[in-house]
């Protein structure tokens, strides 16, 4: 290794366009990273953060991935790209040894061919023909650094979300890169998991690694960064030190979440405020409950979930009544059974004791697909719920049988307008939407059926500021129409801002908070 290297990464992206697309995903972006520093790239969902990160780390390369005009400079070596066939071709293995990238979906970092955490860590070293003795030492060192020492013999497929993310970071840093680019490292982690990642990143910075954080939230870690770059619709709209940018219009327009700043605003949307927002109003007491659970108990049998002991009780004697127009939030620690509770509302899971009633009728024995006409459920992973070729067809799916041909399209368009996706309706493939928009599209498909009950599983996860606002608006509008809303969330502040009542699920029982 050369002595006294002052590796710096500089990138100038005039335009980067994916093959088969006409609009560049990134244009006019410049970024430079110095060793040992923390840099944050902030932007909403679909702003091009991930594309930028992958381009910097040679995960996306000119030629195979798309057309790139601009330059990349690493450690004094400058590569210029003109979108021509004779452009330099980056050697991904060598580039990534110096500039490593950890994707948002940590699982996609894994090779899927290694049986233990230790072997997964060593995979990259094996491919570089590292002698076995060195490999053993490097694995031990990296495991200690990432807090994986106790998990080295585990199968990577059995790790929790936080452990998986640490393994992905470990796989990236085992080759001792000069730069590390992390895409949403805190996404869908609980507080404890986030804290460990934060600690790990601080440690890396302290030992001289230049860290680039790609995030849609200006959270605690981003606050420690020396430099912020705000990315909006594929281009840089602001750059500077955090103190200058916090509260700036550019940050707000980009849809970046600033914790503690915008939550009340998301609920109090100007323009339409028919329902009393945060006030836990009594609601129309005349009506029967939209959704009622009576003494519901449930346990997974042993063979369905291995290793949980003999038929573990997840729910016991749960009573719940949600009136039309009422918004209820259910919170609780990870693994308390919140999602399990939600799956009882439309019959995906059937209670072992008690009864679930929708609009006064028991759903016992009614197929899920039929209950779906009156119960809309939004899952955590919208991708599984989407399957059509265009956004409009997606929202109109199944409406024709319910409302007739003419009305189906009107309703679909209205639902899309309600979540701000009108512009994408006809031409866009659902898979090409940003994660935030996919969630909103899934919400629109549910709302278009005007269900009596709306159940949302962790609706805020992964949404940027615009997404949160639209979600809040759509949920309120649904409640104003008389929909009974139940949302499961670990985000207590969001629950306080939107729900009329908050319940906590703990030890299988529900209680008012």
């Amino acid at each position, binding site marked *: 290794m050369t002595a006294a290297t002052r590796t710096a990464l500089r990138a100038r992206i005039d335009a980067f366009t994916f*093959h*088969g*697309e006409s609009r560049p995903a990134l244009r006019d972006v410049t970024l430079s990273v110095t060793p040992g520093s923390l840099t944050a790239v902030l932007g909403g969902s679909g702003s091009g953060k991930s594309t930028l990160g992958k381009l910097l780390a040679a995960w996306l390369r000119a030629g195979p991935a798309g057309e790139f005009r601009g330059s990349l400079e690493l450690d004094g070596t400058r590569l210029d790209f003109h979108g021509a066939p004779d452009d330099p071709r980056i050697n991904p293995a060598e580039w990534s040894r110096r500039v490593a990238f950890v994707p948002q979906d940590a699982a996609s970092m894994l090779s899927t061919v290694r049986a233990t955490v230790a072997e997964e860590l060593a995979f990259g070293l094996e491919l570089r023909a590292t002698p076995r003795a060195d490999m053993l030492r490097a694995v031990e060192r990296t495991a200690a650094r990432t807090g994986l020492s106790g998990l080295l013999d585990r199968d990577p497929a059995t790790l929790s979300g936080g452990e998986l993310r640490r393994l992905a970071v470990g796989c990236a840093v085992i080759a001792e890169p000069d730069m590390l680019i992390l895409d949403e490292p805190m996404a869908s982690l609980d507080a404890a998991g986030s804290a460990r990642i934060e600690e790990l990143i601080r440690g890396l910075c302290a030992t001289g690694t230049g860290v680039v954080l790609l995030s849609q939230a200006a959270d605690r870690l981003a606050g420690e960064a020396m430099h912020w770059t705000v990315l909006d619709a594929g281009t840089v709209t602001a750059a500077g030190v955090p103190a200058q940018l916090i509260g700036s219009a550019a940050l707000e327009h980009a849809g970046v979440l600033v914790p503690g700043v915008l939550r009340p605003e998301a609920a109090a949307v100007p323009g339409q405020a028919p329902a009393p927002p945060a006030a836990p109003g009594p609601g129309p007491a005349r009506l029967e409950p939209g959704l009622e659970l009576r003494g519901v108990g449930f346990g997974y049998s042993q063979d369905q979930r291995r290793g949980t002991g003999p038929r573990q009780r997840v729910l016991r004697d749960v009573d719940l009544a949600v009136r039309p127009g009422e918004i209820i939030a259910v919170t609780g620690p990870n693994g308390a059974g919140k999602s399990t509770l939600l799956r009882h509302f439309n019959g995906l899971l059937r209670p072992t004791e008690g009864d679930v009633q929708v609009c006064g009728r028991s759903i016992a024995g009614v197929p899920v697909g039929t209950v779906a006409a009156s119960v809309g459920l939004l899952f955590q992973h919208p991708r599984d719920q989407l399957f059509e070729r265009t956004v409009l067809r997606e929202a109109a799916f199944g409406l024709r049988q319910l409302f007739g041909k003419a009305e189906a399209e009107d309703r679909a368009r209205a639902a899309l307008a309600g979540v701000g996706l009108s512009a994408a309706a006809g031409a866009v*493939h659902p898979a090409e939407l940003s994660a935030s928009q996919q969630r909103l599209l899934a919400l629109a498909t549910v709302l278009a059926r005007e269900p009596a009950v709306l159940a949302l599983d962790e609706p805020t996860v992964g949404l940027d500021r615009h997404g949160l606002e639209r979600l809040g608006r759509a949920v309120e509008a649904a409640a104003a129409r008389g929909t009974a809303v139940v949302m499961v969330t670990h985000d207590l502040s969001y629950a306080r801002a939107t729900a009329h009542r908050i319940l906590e699920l703990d030890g299988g029982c529900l209680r008012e908070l």
Partner: protein
Amino acid sequence: MSQPALTVTDPGQAAGRGRRLLEIAGAASIAATYVFLVLTQPADIANGPASFSALVALGGFLLGAVLLIVAVLPVLPTSTLVLIPVALVLNVVLGQLMGSTGLPFYIDAIGTVLIGVLAGPAAGAATGALSSIVWSFFNPTVLPFAAGAALIGFLAGMAARIGLFRRFYLAPVAGFITGILAGVVSAPIAAFVFGGTSGLGTGAIVSAFRAMGDTLLAAITKQALISDPMDKGIVFTIAALLAYALPRRTTFQFPFVRRFRVLAGKAPSAPDA
């Protein structure tokens, strides 16, 4: 130790000729085995199970499949290589799903055809052969059919290359022709290695031809000519449906799709690099 370069030069064509020879040798091995088997098929199988023909069929076809894999696999780009496990899983899972609908077909090559369409004939052939080898982990009887599976993947790639997937109605036609060829090539395996077919429905068709006095190989070949073209027609149609349901960003990342304009629709606005 000198630092490796951050960039790579254009891959040289020197190794290309060796690989091409291996490919040709693999294809020749399969073709020669087939011709040999047809010419020397036992006149009277009543003398005993056709062990000789079975060994020749197994040896020749497996050698061909392995040569093809050895020729193609090391030069496949990683983006195609990672799709092969996906294709294998799709072959298995979609095959089972189709089985659950009660349709009288095996539909076990959807993933192979999809790879052929997206990544070209060579990748398709490797996927087909590997599919049989990996699947034989759970069902050893598919192993001898590796050559036929490679042929299906190869022909799917060729069909895509000459533009048969640009028109939706041409895809089943391409599948039909592929089915004829693949069925004929696979028939000696069914006849000499297994002595029949693994399904009762197909078995009944073979029985009918046998009742008319055909030799076993002829009867199984005729049966294959009845069921395989239909089956592959369906498989190609499903693969076309899937290819068009995928977003353009996904399909256009394949140089093969861009270069030969495999799928209908306007070409990307940016000129192909």
